[in-house]
């Protein structure tokens, strides 16, 4: 997927480099994050202030990690940030690290992103750049900490939070590259400026990576709470049937729901969330079951292979979905998919099985008619039984 910015905005993608960085106290950083209502832009959407507060409560100086692993294949907004406005991410990281009196500030960059510009920007800001090995789950916080500490890049037990014990055993604050860029801009321009865009509950802007059945794939910045169709418009959707919102761990919105606002409240009925801002358009020339089976198979292969239900359940779920895509005449397939989905959910160290199950559940729900026709041996895209 190409990393083409579709529009320039005065916010992230056209920001000018800063001179001297604003110096903040831990309390003023916390107040900025809290008053801005900033949420993480890496996927989970967790309130940034809560993470910041957590690392200030440790006895040792924290480590601050900028997360630009971008393991989601449909996402390229962190790549755009780090190649177009690397100073914004680096400065955000340096401001946070300075405010918290951090022991170390590390920008972790995945293998899909060219680190040249970011390395240059980091040189004068006391930020270390770490090029790490990739994979879908390597950006998960504890997997990232493990890799930075020289251990295998797999998630740890969630009972021990990285904000308590992370890199080198220190409290560790892991923030997504875009979250850091947003924080850097908030420190520069203030909370009121940040809140001029978005909604009171979900303020600011977000980057969206748009791909699939569109005239031009790429990255667009839009206010939080924009309508899905408005965000997609600049990419030019071509005969959209549905949109996968939130990436491979996301959920589908049918094309009849393009006026839905991209807020957690409005997306909830679809089981979707903005996540890292991935919007993938499904056109009329691809079978949705085939597409979902491909994603589920990919995600099964990307398992860290350490938790039993994920190791066993994800391949079985993907296989049943593939058989459904192939119109195998087995009326038990939806029940088998459902069973594997429930066996995978909530039973792993990280959210990988849950996210995979969420995407599959959404597929079965949104494309229920398509599923029925497949069971009867017909697919309106691929034709009769194979």
């Amino acid at each position: 997927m190409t990393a083409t910015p579709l529009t320039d905005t005065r916010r992230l993608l056209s920001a000018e480099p800063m001179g001297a960085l604003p110096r903040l106290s831990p309390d003023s950083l916390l107040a900025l994050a809290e008053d801005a209502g900033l949420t993480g832009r890496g996927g989970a959407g967790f309130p940034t202030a809560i993470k910041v507060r957590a690392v200030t409560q440790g006895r040792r100086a924290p480590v601050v990690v900028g997360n630009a692993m971008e393991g989601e294949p449909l996402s390229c907004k962190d790549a755009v940030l780090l190649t177009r406005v690397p100073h914004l991410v680096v400065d955000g990281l340096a401001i946070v690290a300075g405010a918290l009196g951090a022991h170390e500030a590390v920008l972790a960059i995945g293998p899909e992103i060219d680190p040249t510009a970011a390395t240059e920007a980091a040189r004068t800001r006391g930020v270390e750049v770490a090029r790490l090995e990739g994979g879908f789950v390597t950006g998960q916080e504890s997997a990232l900490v493990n890799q930075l500490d020289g251990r295998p890049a797999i998630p740890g037990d969630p009972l021990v939070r990285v904000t308590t014990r992370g890199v080198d055993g220190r409290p560790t604050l892991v923030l997504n590259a875009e979250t850091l860029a947003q924080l850097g801009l908030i420190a520069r321009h203030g909370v009121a400026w940040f809140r001029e865009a978005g909604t009171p509950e979900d303020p600011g802007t977000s980057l969206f990576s748009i791909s699939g059945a569109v005239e031009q794939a790429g990255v667009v910045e839009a206010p939080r709470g924009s309508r899905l169709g408005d965000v997609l418009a600049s990419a030019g959707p071509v005969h959209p049937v549905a949109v996968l919102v939130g990436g491979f761990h996301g959920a589908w919105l049918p094309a009849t729901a393009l006026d839905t606002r991209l807020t957690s409240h409005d997306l909830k009925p679809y089981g979707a969330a903005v996540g890292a801002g991935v919007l993938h358009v499904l056109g009329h020339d691809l079978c949705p079951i085939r597409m979902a089976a491909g994603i589920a198979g990919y995600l099964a292969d990307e398992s860290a292979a350490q938790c039993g239900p994920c190791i066993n359940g994800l391949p079985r779920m993907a296989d049943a979905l593939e058989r459904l895509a192939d119109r195998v005449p087995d009326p038990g397939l939806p029940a088998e998919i459902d069973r594997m989905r429930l066996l995978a959910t909530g039973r792993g160290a990280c959210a990988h099985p849950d996210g995979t199950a969420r995407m599959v559940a959404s597929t079965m729900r949104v494309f229920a008619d398509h599923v029925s026709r497949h069971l009867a041996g017909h697919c309106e895209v691929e034709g009769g039984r194979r």
Partner: protein
Amino acid sequence: MTRLHVDWTRCDGHGACAELVPELLAGDEWGFPLSRTGERDPEVPPALEEHAEHAVRSCPLMALRLV
């Protein structure tokens, strides 16, 4: 309130826990513990605390904890 936590990064599906606290854990078709309450970490009622502690001590991979 005490809960029984499975460390999935350690659990290898030996199945001892499901035998020792069947009220809280069943075994799935691969032998991995399956919460009977539907909660991620099932709540341990006071009457079952002793059994749960025994399960924690008996796990060959030390994958269970009371939290």
